[in-house]
């Protein structure tokens, strides 16, 4: 019998090596790119870092004439708008995720709904901004006025509605992160073993009891991951916020007040910035990256602890 096996040709070996080198190169190039960005931003921020130090994050002025810069209102606005948006988006997103992962309507309708929600992610940010200005603000104005007039003593509605501001920004931001939260939560819910649901139903649980007491807790780690992912996206979102948030460095708990975010600050000030203001903007960018990194690390830590806790049960 003649064997058909033969050693790989020199070309095969070269191709194999080359390919391995290529993937190795790409992986390291990505890491190098991240480091390069961080390095360059830090370098450009250095003059401002030296000059303003930590007080940059605790003061509230942005005055290029007097060269006074501080981003406390922007940090507040970034966290507040993202947190508020996340609150709305989580309620809606998890609701959507439950609906499309349960057997409420025929599978074709579920697929349709799932795709439509994911389509929200395909709308460009600037379109959301325009839509926010011309649709959302007029739409919520009567409600916002009512809230201020009747519940104005409540700090949340303590200032008159200014049009662009926290509430419209948070609403639009919520719509923008909704697809992320809905899609990732849905995956988490679909991955809950059906036998857990069956177990609950078999004990005489209603569908909602099974969902709330068994399925949602079983998917909670994944849903939490979805929220962290959504938070990361909300923190960095720029265009729509620059158009909607009001761009005023005010610290207020009132959702009706105009505000500002780090990303909107960067977008609005870079065209005219020169000298030390460029450094200040780079410093603000560094703060934004730091916040995003921190949120992701904390999220990962909580997820890691949750999964370690589950493993510990075995």
């Amino acid at each position: 019998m003649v064997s058909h096996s033969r050693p790989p040709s020199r070309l095969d070996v070269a191709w194999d090596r080359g390919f391995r080198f290529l993937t190795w190169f790409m992986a390291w190039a990505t890491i190098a790119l991240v480091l390069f960005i961080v390095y360059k931003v830090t370098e450009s921020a250095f003059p401002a870092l030296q000059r303003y130090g930590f007080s940059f994050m605790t003061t509230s002025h942005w005055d290029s004439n007097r060269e006074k810069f501080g981003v406390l209102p922007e940090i507040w606005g970034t966290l507040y708008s993202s947190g508020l948006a996340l609150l709305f988006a989580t309620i809606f997103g998890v609701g959507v995720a439950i609906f499309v992962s349960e057997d409420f309507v025929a599978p074709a309708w579920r697929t349709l709904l799932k795709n439509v929600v994911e389509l929200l992610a395909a709308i460009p940010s600037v379109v959301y901004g325009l839509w926010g200005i011309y649709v959302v603000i007029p739409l919520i104005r009567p409600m916002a006025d009512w809230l201020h007039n009747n519940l104005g003593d409540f700090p949340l509605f303590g200032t008159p509605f200014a049009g662009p501001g926290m509430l419209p920004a948070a609403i639009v931001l919520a719509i923008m992160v909704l697809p992320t939260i809905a899609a990732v939560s849905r995956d988490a819910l679909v991955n809950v073993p059906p036998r857990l649901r069956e177990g609950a139903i078999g004990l005489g649980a209603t569908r909602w009891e099974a969902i709330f007491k068994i399925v949602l807790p079983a998917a909670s780690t994944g849903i939490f991951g979805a929220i962290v992912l959504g938070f990361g996206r909300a923190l960095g979102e720029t265009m729509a916020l620059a158009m909607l948030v009001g761009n005023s460095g005010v610290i207020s708990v009132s959702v009706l007040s105009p505000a500002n975010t780090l990303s909107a600050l960067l977008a609005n000030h870079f065209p005219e910035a020169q000298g030390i203001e460029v450094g200040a903007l780079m410093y603000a960018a560094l703060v934004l990256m730091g916040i995003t990194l921190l949120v992701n690390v904390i999220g990962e830590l909580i997820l890691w602890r949750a999964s370690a806790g589950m493993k510990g049960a075995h």
Partner: protein
Amino acid sequence: MSTATQSETSAGETGAQQDVVIDAKIDELHYGKFKAVRDVHIPFTRNSITAFIGPSGCGKSSALRCLNRMNDLVRGFRLSGHVHFRGTDIYDPKVDPVAVRRHIGMVFQQPNPFAMSIYNNVAFGLRLNGFRGNMGEHVERALRHAALWDEVKDKLRASGLSLSGGQQQRLCIARAVATEPEVLLMDEPCSALDPIATLKIEELMRHLKESYTIAIVTHNLQQAKRVADKTGFLYVDTSEGGRTGYLVEYGHTDQLFTDPREEFTKQYIHGDVG
């Protein structure tokens, strides 16, 4: 077939009949266009174990899941026939399937404890029922009933998932009996367990039948022989093109295994077909 001798009476209606708790008559069971089961008529008598045997795909699980309306979860499920439980057809539109499942408990093929403590697993069903009595006492009683108490009494707060497979399955049995249903359905409860854990569960079943009426699906003929009082043999009919399960023979377990009426049954229990 002996099912023909069973009239359409249901439990409670007459004491003359052997105390029938569930009288199931599945004329046709469909999932969408697929006809999964036809002509299964089995009465389940009080404090006895009734087994469904047959090859995979013969519809024995489908038939079992009709008895507490678990099939309602499957899209496209349709049943013609009836399942009388205490004189009421559980498929009557006025009947709430959730209420049915609180009277007819179920144990599944894969042990499926919830990701919560052993105690809370057992208390889960009681809480669903809005139980207001002494929870600790009831949990203990259910765990004793499931022959698990001695093994877990010192770690009731440990996760149900920390137990071995056999213990998990007994936990699921404890969870199911905690609310004291009348009937216990067991869908291949030992197929994921090792032989020792299997024997333990079988011993438990013989003990549980003093309080409950049990219906079990098993692919293990020896298991049916060991535990069941009555046995129904289902087989697959491919004559219409699909794969439709039907009841070939039903009777006392001894009789079915030693002196089957149908040639087909004989061939199956001797391993000639399958």
